[in-house]
């Protein structure tokens, strides 16, 4: 089999699964089976892709055989392949969890097809090498997420959805305008080709366009000061949907920032990346302070996503430091990627745990919870490990992610930002301890209507919910204790990102068309 076909599978498989599930609209059972089979296929394909990318280097797939820059290319470098692997893991675990939590009311209104479509959109966004195609995948992902967000049609969901839809549409339009301007400046849409052409465009418009991309992706990533849609909406949908959103959606924005601001906009790093650096610092602090003020399980976790995005932006922003040593730059980007991976695993896991707690006690409000440690110590353990990992305690994955980013920050002489990061880490621990104290440690009120639920043994459904949590917990622990091979992978990925010529070479823009503005009679504006 040709190697480049591998790049297609992570996009094609979920799309096929979505199509088949739509055909089997009337049979929830068949949709469940397709759900598990389809996402296992996605997981297998993503592992295969990562292995192949690691062994063979960057893999490029030319859609319909049009040579770049004329056709759309799908490109799998290590960053893309790692991110796609996360889609596979999240897709698989969340679908297993959904078997227990998605009731008839969701399943009969297209829960599984939408889930598959979301996976396809996210995987497509990670793999595409064409900036307009990136916009299209963003829209595929967004439409699926809109529908998932309002599934069930409860009162709180409506308000969250109105805010989410509006702000995401605004961000898409900013992105679209930025793409239009990029095309006007360079006459191409292929990301590698844009990167090549921008080196020769000497115009202040380049930085303007860079800022537009930053705002558009910043909204999607939930960075300061553009995050307010996130705490308004993420706690409202069914818990499996919350978990998937928390894991994947904001990280697509973070991925897009990593891609665009290492490949394309590297002309004026002192300006653009400094904004990212400080936005990251303020993002982490506002996020964690917002979480400190909340007393609802899922709201605390949602607002925490924002603060975690701050670390990723900080890692990327460290490239702005004028006297950053080469090694520190690599460490920063590798740490950022490791942080994204760690955060996807841990955040999703905490949301999944909150769903189990809700199933037991019927509430997300911390004051209505309690007594779990006493009656269900295993569940308390399942919360405890990812919570400590999120706070960054060794030897879990969060420690190494934070350690790399902070060490790179120190080597880049960004002491103030590092101080922000350390304070945020401390406050994260505070929020996690707050959930622990209220929901797990404190005794349950004697007149709580669900008290008997705690003393009953777990039924089969609860064990189905435990399975993905345990799987993700193992991921966290392995990423922490056995982190060296993973860190080498992210370091290799950072080396690829910091040397864009590898990407450009792999996409393979032919020499005779590398100057479209002069050579083609009408290939774009001036």
């Amino acid at each position, binding site marked *: 089999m040709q190697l480049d076909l591998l790049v297609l599978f992570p996009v094609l498989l979920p799309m096929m699964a979505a199509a088949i599930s739509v055909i089997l609209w009337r049979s929830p059972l068949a949709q469940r089976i397709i759900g598990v089979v389809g996402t296992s296929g996605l997981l297998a394909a993503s592992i295969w892709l990562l292995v192949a990318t690691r062994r063979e280097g960057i893999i490029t797939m030319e859609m319909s055989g049009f040579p770049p820059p004329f056709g759309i290319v799908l490109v799998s470098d290590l960053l893309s392949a790692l991110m796609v692997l996360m889609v596979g893991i999240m897709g698989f675990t969340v679908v297993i969890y959904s078997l227990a939590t998605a009731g008839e009311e969701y399943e009969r209104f297209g829960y599984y097809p939408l889930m598959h479509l979301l996976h396809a959109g996210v995987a497509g966004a990670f793999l595409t090498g064409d900036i*307009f195609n990136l*916009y*299209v995948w963003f*829209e595929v992902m*967004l*439409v699926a997420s*809109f*529908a998932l967000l*309002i599934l069930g*049609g409860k*009162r*709180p*969901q*409506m*308000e*969250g*959805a*109105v805010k989410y*839809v*509006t702000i995401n*549409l*605004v961000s*898409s*339009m*900013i992105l*679209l*305008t930025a*793409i*239009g*301007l990029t*095309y*006007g400046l360079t006459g191409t*849409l292929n990301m590698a080709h844009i990167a090549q052409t921008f080196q020769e465009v000497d115009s202040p418009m380049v930085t303007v366009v860079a800022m537009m991309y930053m705002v558009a992706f910043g909204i999607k990533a939930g960075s300061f000061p553009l995050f307010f849609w996130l705490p*308004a909406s993420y*706690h*409202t949908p069914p818990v499996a949907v919350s978990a998937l959103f928390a894991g994947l959606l904001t990280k697509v924005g973070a991925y897009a920032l990593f891609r665009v601001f290492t490949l394309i906009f590297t002309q004026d790093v002192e300006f653009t990346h400094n904004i990212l650096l400080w936005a990251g610092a303020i993002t982490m602090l506002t996020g964690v302070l917002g979480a400190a003020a909340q007393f609802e399980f899922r709201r605390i976790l949602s607002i925490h996503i924002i603060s975690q995005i701050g670390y990723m932006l900080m890692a990327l922003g460290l490239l702005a430091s004028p006297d950053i040593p080469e090694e520190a730059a690599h460490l920063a980007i590798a740490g950022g990627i490791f942080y994204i991976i760690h955060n996807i695993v841990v955040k999703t896991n905490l949301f999944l745990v909150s769903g189990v707690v809700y199933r037991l006690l*019927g*509430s*997300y*409000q911390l004051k*209505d919870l309690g007594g779990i440690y006493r009656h269900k110590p295993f569940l308390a353990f399942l919360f405890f490990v990812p919570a400590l990992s999120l706070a960054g305690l060794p030897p879990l994955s969060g420690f190494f992610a934070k350690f790399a980013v902070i060490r790179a920050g120190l080597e880049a002489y960004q002491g103030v930002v590092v101080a922000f990061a350390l304070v945020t880490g401390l406050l994260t621990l505070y929020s996690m301890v707050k959930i622990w104290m209220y929901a797990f440690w404190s005794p349950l009120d004697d007149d709580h*209507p669900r008290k008997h639920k705690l003393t009953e043994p777990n039924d089969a459904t609860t064990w189905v919910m435990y399975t993905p949590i345990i799987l993700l917990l193992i991921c966290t622990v392995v990423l922490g204790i056995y982190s060296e091979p993973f860190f080498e992978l992210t370091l290799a990925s950072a080396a690829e990102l910091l040397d864009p010529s590898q990407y450009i070479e792999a996409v393979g823009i032919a020499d005779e068309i590398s100057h479209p503005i002069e050579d083609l*009679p*009408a*290939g*774009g*504006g*001036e």
Partner: protein
Amino acid sequence: MEPLMAFVVGGLFAAAIYMILRRSIIKLVIGLILLSNAANLAIFTAAGMREGAPPLIPAGGVEPMITPSADPLPQALILTAIVIAFGVLAFAVVLIHRAYEIVGVDDLDEMNTTDETKELK
């Protein structure tokens, strides 16, 4: 032509943002519609507006076009963007209708605390 289009695009963006900032959810959707049109026109303008022959190669021909021809790509981009915006806006219209039915207000200022679930189920 370009300066005129620049003003049209700017005017559309301004009108769209004004409408999005209004309190009524109907006006919010009108603002989104204007915004997507503004973005499409911005692509159209930025990609260069000039007269040219249709970008076609005659049947059997292999030579690239010699006379300056129009760039077909912006039109393809805009067409894609229109279709996507149409779908998403259709969803937005249905959403605000449902939101109005369920929440019972069309004022965004009053739609900021409906997600606080106080009751214990």
